[in-house]
């Protein structure tokens, strides 16, 4: 038995004080990852395919009403509840700390979806189609998922793979900020920051140590790789 190790531990910081709830990340994710386009009907049925969603909460009573946004994507937990329950290893932990999902292994038990406390796993209830010319926008780097399989945010693993290849060719590590998932790249207010948590000097590692940091459903002990920032004297907003 050989345990695989990696110099990278990918993680993300989401600064809620910066998030404006614009939804650019959701669209970027959709475009990057061949996420199926869902209409009103599917969303009303609870079968939309967004890998990343922005939860919107109304806080307070009229006239003092505020809106709060919470972008939620796969938290890439270190102790992920979704992984050990999969009977066919479709959901597994890769050495980079990513919570991998192998689509063509998946048989569709949906057990992982039940056991994910963040409810970020989406299931292909429909056979989604991309009628021409929409199929031209499909990314060749990523599988188009068939019906009956589970899918979820991968931290744009295809970009990480490419950056690793480039860096490996040049015989160096990936530089901080060299690789970004589509959501972080798109965020106009730079609320999303992605990077290597194993490098204590990376931007994401420094932000993770912020006194404003917290993790989603921290008490469950899932040890997410995504850290949220909130507070910093702006709690009233």
């Amino acid at each position, binding site marked *: 038995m050989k345990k695989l190790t990696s110099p990278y531990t990918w993680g993300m910081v989401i600064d809620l004080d910066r998030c404006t709830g614009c939804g650019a990340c959701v669209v970027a994710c959709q475009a990057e990852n061949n996420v199926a386009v869902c209409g009103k009907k599917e969303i009303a049925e609870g079968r939309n395919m967004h890998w990343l969603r922005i939860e919107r909460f109304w806080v307070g009573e009229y006239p003092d009403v505020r809106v709060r946004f919470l972008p939620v994507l796969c938290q890439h937990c270190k102790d992920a509840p979704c992984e050990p329950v999969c009977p066919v290893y479709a959901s597994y932990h890769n050495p980079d700390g990513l919570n991998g999902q192998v689509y063509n292994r*998946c048989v569709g038990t949906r057990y992982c979806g039940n056991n994910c*406390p963040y409810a970020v796993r989406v299931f292909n209830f429909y056979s989604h189609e991309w009628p021409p010319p929409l199929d031209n926008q499909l990314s060749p780097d990523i599988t188009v998922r068939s019906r009956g399989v589970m899918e979820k945010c991968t931290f744009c693993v295809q970009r990480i793979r490419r950056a690793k290849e480039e860096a490996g060719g040049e015989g160096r590590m990936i530089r901080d900020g060299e690789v970004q998932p589509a959501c972080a790249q798109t965020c106009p207010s730079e609320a999303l920051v992605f990077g290597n948590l194993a490098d204590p000097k990376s931007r994401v590692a420094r932000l993770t140590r912020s006194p404003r940091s917290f993790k989603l459903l921290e008490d469950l002990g899932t040890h997410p790789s995504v850290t949220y920032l909130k507070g910093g004297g702006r709690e009233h907003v």
Partner: protein
Amino acid sequence: MSEFSGQTHGDTPAAKSAARLNDEMLSSMAPPTWRWYALAFVLGAVVAWGLYAFSYMVATDMSCTGLNRPVMWGLFIVSFVFWVGLSHSGTMVSAILRLSRAEWRRPILRAAEAMTVFSITVAGLFPIIHLGRNWTFYYLIPYPNQRGLWPNFRSALLWDAVAITTYIIGSTLFLYLGMLPDLAIARDRSSGWRRRVYAVLAMGWRGSAHEWSVYRKASTLMAALIIPVAVSVHSIVAFDFAVTLVPGWHSTIFPPYFVIGAINSGVAAVITLMIVIRKAFRLEEYLTPQHFDNMGKLLLVISLLWSYAYFVEVNITWYAHEPIEWEVFSFMANRYTPILALMILANTVLPISTLCFKRLRRSIGVMLTVSVLINVAMFIERYLIIVPTLSRKNMPFMWGSYFPSWVEISIAVAAFAGFGLLYLLFAKWFPIMAVADVRELKEREAEVRLGRAKLPADVKDEL
């Protein structure tokens, strides 16, 4: 068949010849009547409809179900748990009664053991029906392949697969073992191709002293082996829920609670089936009120145990008032008030209030009502464990609800019809009464004079 309704003649089974007993107990194997065909046709039609619904789901996609995010498990898994639960009666009750030498078990044995085999078979289909890609279910089987696939033994679903396979094989062998001497009797009483089939199944059984001596020991050993398997099977089904992080499922009482629930629905189903078989095959003098009285006592005990477990589960959640868990429970109580009330009525109030009374336990009508209602309640119980819990998980933004679609309802109903059909065929082709077991008891019953009374003296089984 009417000349066999011995009760009217007033002669007791003990006074009858062995051939007469064989005739009566094997009367169910007589050539089928038009009613049998009609019933088989109706059940077959329902099964065909269910198959159509399933094929439709496979051919299109899973959007024809009511499932969604967050309720990713629905009626299929409810049915799965229900049928696994139902399968716990037979073999387990029969094994426990065998080991505790309860002589009244004998006429019930076969019906109960057959029920186990068919309900676990039906149950085993549901996880496969439920899969998003049913056609790849063999990915769960550990065999070397060129796909680089191997199942994950850390997943509770794989424990399920292993446990259910064990239970299907174990309970089928247990049924077969119990049937071996009866198959020999069936062989000797039939002719033509049926005789050849029974001859193969009876394995050349003659009933020699040596065969019987080994057979008796083997029955005891099998009974002892099958009980822990039965307990483990429903515990593992409970692990599917209990090992998760889902509030409302993650509960340490689940495995024993599920086992109790399983025995509850199983014992109730055995009683229902006893009533049906008794009526259909006119076996009134073999399945007497005494049997219903005893089974009623058993059901009362299980019912009390179930109520206790349910009380513990709810009481502790209520007292701790952990917010998400409590949300699950209050959602269940608010949204599903009518069926929750029906569940408590049928699973606790009704059985406990009726089964305490001997007169009611001996009334077939009361027993039928109580036993059928218990299974309705147990179906509801599984629904209430699965659906409301998933509707209210940790992230309030992703709360949802679920209602089964026509596809799911059709398949769930077809499962009942399929079970009925299997049972119907079994009762026609195989001895539905444990003939040798019943006759053994008759042989051993003698009356001895003690003082002024004549008392029955029977030789106990040796284990």
